[in-house]
């Protein structure tokens, strides 16, 4: 067998390489720098790396060559295993922006009196002398871990074959499992969240891998273009294909938290340190939806009639269960987690809007464009909302019980107003980004004939308004109950967290008032290349 040395397109994939290199460099810093210097070094290194990658992404995005007869732009890099096309570059940009905001939240040290939100030493047992000794330490390994997770998130939607997609899935997940278990306070909850996330995540990636094997058995090749060819020519054993698609879907739908694979979401969102929750609620969803779009549109696009009914059912279940369970929550973080499940359903509604180019009216929003836009609006709102959650505290740390937030609007009107604004965006009230996002995904789904799903989506949006507005009412229109010490107050954060919240508010507002530029950009990203 002839072996040709694969060529790497360094110029096009260097945003990923930079992030990976910074992660590796972070490990070296951790090993050799004195403890005092690690925190500033790691934060500076991560920020510089992410900004450099972002600049690179913009550069790559403006220099993409036309492909597929002008329908799309981009190229197949690394011997076909990394696809750098419009949607990829767009998702890279979005992941990097939210990773930068995530790093700012990770670096916040004023809330815990000079230390970060991560356990001083993860190995020290809770309640022992060792833990008390480690109380003043800072856990700086989180920055390299996050860099590795970000590189996985960038590779996931860019993967051009099933094997790369599986490796990216693991590179993105493994650091997140660890990050979830590193909370400084309530460590038992945090460790439990890590274990649940890990066991269920490993279980679902087992399904994903078996799906990879079956689809490979069907098509005889791993790359998406080859699978597409095999699906079109209908040569292989279609039972393998159908079961394989189902198993691949299990792995991907687990990552985005779709019903019935959502069980981990509330536990992990609640138990994980809040900066990690903020980062992963945005980042994982962006990356995994990018991967879902690529897998289902590029590899299985011609087999649409087989997978669309499955996604119909899952989208409907996800939206309904998400909002119904969110209504009965009494914890803010869990409420936001179930709302994220519901948003997964709305995003899946957008995925169902897949249509061939010929069926689209002139100037109509495509489903890729709608989903990409929705991801950005949702990420601004969720990252901002979790950033606010990290501020509302009492003596024992974050106060996430809903009743504890009573009267917050009077004590700290600005913070409560920002939180209310994020909730309104998630509810899809006009003049917020969430409204435009919902409008976009619903219209593409209706024009593709998925109107029953959209009807359910509108009904669930109405139910969702109920629990979002209830939280706003608790903050602004109810009196705090119980003794003074039990009422949560807003701790003054440093510029890092308040800056993140301001960016979230501005992003949500701008996307709600002038959505045009971002919609154009998402549309300009064009289509996936094959």
């Amino acid at each position, binding site marked *: 067998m002839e072996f040709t040395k694969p060529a790497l397109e360094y110029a096009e994939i260097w945003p990923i390489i930079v992030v990976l290199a910074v992660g590796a460099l972070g490990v070296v810093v951790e090993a050799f720098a004195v403890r005092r210097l690690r925190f500033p070094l790691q934060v500076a290194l991560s920020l510089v790396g992410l900004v450099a990658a972002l600049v690179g992404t913009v550069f790559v995005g403006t220099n993409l060559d036309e492909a597929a007869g002008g329908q799309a732009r981009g190229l197949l890099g690394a011997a076909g295993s990394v696809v750098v096309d419009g949607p990829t570059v767009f998702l890279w940009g979005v992941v990097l922006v939210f990773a930068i905001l995530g790093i700012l939240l990770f670096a916040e040290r004023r809330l815990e009196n000079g230390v970060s939100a991560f356990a001083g030493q993860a190995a020290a047992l809770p309640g022992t002398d060792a833990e008390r000794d480690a109380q003043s330490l800072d856990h700086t390994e989180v920055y390299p871990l996050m860099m590795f997770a970000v590189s996985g998130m960038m590779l996931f939607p860019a993967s051009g074959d099933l094997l790369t997609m599986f490796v990216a899935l693991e590179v993105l997940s493994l650091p997140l499992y660890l990050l979830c278990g590193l909370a400084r306070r309530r460590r038992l909850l945090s460790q*439990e969240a*890590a*274990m649940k996330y890990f066991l269920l995540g490993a279980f679902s990636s087992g399904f994903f*891998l*078996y799906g990879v*094997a*079956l689809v*490979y*058995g069907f098509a005889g090749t791993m790359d998406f273009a080859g699978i597409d060819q095999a699906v079109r020519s209908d040569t292989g054993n279609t039972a393998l294909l159908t079961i394989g698609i189902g198993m691949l879907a299990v792995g991907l739908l687990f990552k985005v938290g779709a019903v019935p694979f959502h069980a981990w979401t509330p536990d992990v969102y*609640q138990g994980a340190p809040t900066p990690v929750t903020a980062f992963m609620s945005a980042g994982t969803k962006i990356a995994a939806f990018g991967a879902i779009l690529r897998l289902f549109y590029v590899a299985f696009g011609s087999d649409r009639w087989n997978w669309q009914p499955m996604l119909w059912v899952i989208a409907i279940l996800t939206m309904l269960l998400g909002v119904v369970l969110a209504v009965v929550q009494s914890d803010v973080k869990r409420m936001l987690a179930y709302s994220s499940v519901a948003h997964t359903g709305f995003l899946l509604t957008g995925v169902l809007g897949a249509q061939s180019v010929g069926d689209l009216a002139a100037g109509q929003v495509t489903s890729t464009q709608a989903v990409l836009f929705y991801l950005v609006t949702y990420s601004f709102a969720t990252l901002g909302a979790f950033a606010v959650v990290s501020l509302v505290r009492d003596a024992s740390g974050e106060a996430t019980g809903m009743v504890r937030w009573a009267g917050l609007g009077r004590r700290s009107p600005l913070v409560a107003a920002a939180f209310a604004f994020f909730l309104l965006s998630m509810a899809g009230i006009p003049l917020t980004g969430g409204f435009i996002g919902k409008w976009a995904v619903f219209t593409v789904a209706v024009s593709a004939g998925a109107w029953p799903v959209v009807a359910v989506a509108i009904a669930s949006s109405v139910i969702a308004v109920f629990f979002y507005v209830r939280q706003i009412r608790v903050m602004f229109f109810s009196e705090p109950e119980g003794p003074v010490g039990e009422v949560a107050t807003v701790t003054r954060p440093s510029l890092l967290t308040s800056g993140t919240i301001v960016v979230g508010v501005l992003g949500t507002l701008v996307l709600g008032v002038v959505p045009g530029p971002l919609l154009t950009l998402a549309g300009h990203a064009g289509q996936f290349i094959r």
Partner: protein
Amino acid sequence: MNDVTPYILLSAILFTIGTVGVLVRRNAIVVFMCVELMLNASNLALVAFAYQHGDLEGQIAAFFVMVVAAAEVVVGLAIIMTIFRTRRSASVDDASLLKY
């Protein structure tokens, strides 16, 4: 075309044993071992299909999967170890502080 049906059947059986094991076993380590069994069942299927198609991609994939599984073991055992040291138990039923 080579007939690889027996190997695929064996891999399906192994995968099923792994899946059922994850669902019914209570010790986190055993649950994790069952996940590894699922990954190895997939490896067997990948290699068998590679043989059927006369193609090397599936065999290469099996190597990648082994590396990924090793990385997963590192992370997984670290997490299960911390849980065990704090609670003196690795049972997945005991870890039930987060619910509803």
